[in-house]
């Protein structure tokens, strides 16, 4: 299937997100590559032609809100926002270092353009729910998006938000589960298996959409469908591969929260199409 111009732009952006994320994490000597890479295509689709935003006016009232609840995967978010025009990409390399605004987990005190400070899992969807209710009350025209991890759905608070939003038909609220089937210690199957996620969200009154989270056209299609849903919140369950884009990191629990050494960095960058030496 021939891909459209927009899709090519998305794929380009996804590649940039991975490249910048890897550079940042390597330079920091710590961070979370696996969950940054699994979310890269989703973030690319969001920032390249879905979200309404103005980088030079981060407090624009009618902007779409994106709550990035899986805060540990922030290198991908910072990279996406940089490519989208929020920050100079050169600054990203200071990730996790003293006096750099790119903190180890998203910190609104340092970057007001972030919609929420995250890092304690399980809370972002409730924050997004509050934003969606505020939108309903004010009658403003925006959508609230929230990216959560599948491991994160272990948290009971996710299901509190799910229950409320479903029962009250809160629309303009679009969740995206980065369903990469790995959490911190191991495969989710060995910690707490999720299973039937779309059915679960449906049972809570949400409109579920199940897609391949690395297929740009599927992601764009799902986001478009989601924006058209009224009277219900939407959960896009995006099947992803943790570490996607670097063969030796793919589907490997060990790459959840570890920086590559120099040799691994060079190899990984080569796979992403960048020749580097260290």
């Amino acid at each position: 299937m021939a891909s459209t111009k927009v899709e090519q732009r998305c794929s380009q952006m996804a590649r940039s997100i991975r490249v910048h994320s890897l550079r940042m994490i390597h330079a920091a000597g710590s961070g979370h590559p696996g969950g940054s890479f699994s979310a890269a295509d989703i973030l690319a689709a969001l920032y390249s032609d879905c979200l309404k935003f103005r980088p030079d006016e981060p407090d624009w009232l009618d902007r779409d809100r994106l709550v990035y609840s899986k805060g540990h995967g922030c290198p991908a978010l910072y990279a996406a926002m940089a490519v989208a025009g929020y920050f100079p990409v050169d600054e990203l390399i200071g990730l996790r270092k003293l006096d750099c605004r790119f903190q180890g987990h998203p910190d609104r005190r340092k970057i007001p353009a972030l919609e929420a400070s995250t890092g304690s899992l399980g809370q972002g969807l409730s924050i997004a729910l509050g934003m969606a209710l505020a939108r309903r009350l004010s009658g403003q025209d925006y959508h609230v998006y929230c990216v959560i991890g599948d491991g994160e759905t272990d948290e009971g608070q996710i299901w509190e938000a799910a229950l409320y939003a479903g029962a009250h038909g809160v629309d303009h609220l679009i969740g995206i589960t980065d369903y990469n089937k790995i959490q911190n210690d191991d495969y989710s199957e060995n910690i707490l298996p999720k299973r039937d996620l779309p059915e679960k969200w449906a049972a809570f009154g949400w409109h579920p959409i199940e897609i391949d989270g690395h297929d740009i056209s599927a992601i764009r299609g799902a986001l478009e469908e989601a924006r058209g849903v009224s009277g219900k919140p939407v959960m896009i369950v995006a099947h992803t591969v943790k570490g996607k884009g670097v063969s030796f990191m793919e589907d490997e629990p060990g790459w959840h929260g570890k920086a590559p050494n120099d040799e691994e960095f060079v190899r990984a960058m080569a796979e992403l199409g960048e020749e580097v030496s260290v």
Partner: protein
Amino acid sequence: MTAATVRSFEMGKSTRVAYGETLRELGRERSDIVVLDADLSKSTQTVLFGKEFPERWFNIGIQEANLVSMASGFASCGYVPFISSFAVFLVCKGFDQLRMGVAYPGINVKVVTSHGGISIGQDGPSQMGIEDLGLACSLPGFVVCCPADEVSARELVRETAKHDSAVYLRTGRPAVPIIYGADHPPETFRLGKSVQITDGGDVTLIACGLMVSEALIAHDILAAEGIRARVIDMHTLKPLDGEAVERAARETGAIVTAEEHLLHGGLGSIVAQFAAKHHPVPVESVGVEDTYAESGSPDELLDRYGLRAVNIAEAARRSLARKSS
């Protein structure tokens, strides 16, 4: 003023590794111990227990509230549960569960957390436990402990297992200096009984956790100025070793506390409250001011947030000035 010659320490393991290794030993000695973790077992080090005793180890997922209440159930059925996650997640997310399922009914659960303080470094404030000690102290009946090095941590984890009611014990992420050489008699470490490491009559430095080594360096800095500081490792915040505090107040007339924790609710608050009641003297406190830290290396953060020997020494000079005025 000439530069002081300060002591150097041999580096030991982190207190979290000491916990993991001791827990595994306890698993070999006792069959009633069960361990619960919330998907952070490689950080908390309970994975060491899990590998050897998979049937008594429950890595339940990222569910801190559920974890605490489950442990309450285990304990009611006669097991001794050790539950672990990062300090901030277990105490902040599980707080009402700690209250309703452990403290209020008086259930014997051992809450041992890792990543206490700002010395976790690069991950930043959302992962830093700086309010855990104060919150744990606010739970009636809880013993609250924060060991300084691997040697004392091992013994205090054993004491925790022996203790017949709830204990909160905080461990840290980085490797820390060894304060107590291997020849140190282990019976020195008893919950609720502080350890006086140096004697001195001018001022008392009372510290817990990794601030104990900083207090010892502060002792050396002060010694070069002719100030004799008593250093006390107050590894147990609750019950406080009031006798040691009262003696320090009486014999040295000035106290400085040092902790890797918010100034509100931690060691400083507790010691000041005790001293005010029993033997009022100037008390100065070193800790995290009313703020959250940021990302950076552990050393950079300890410098920036004023958790260093120089800060303790400065606080000691302030307390001495107040004493003589």
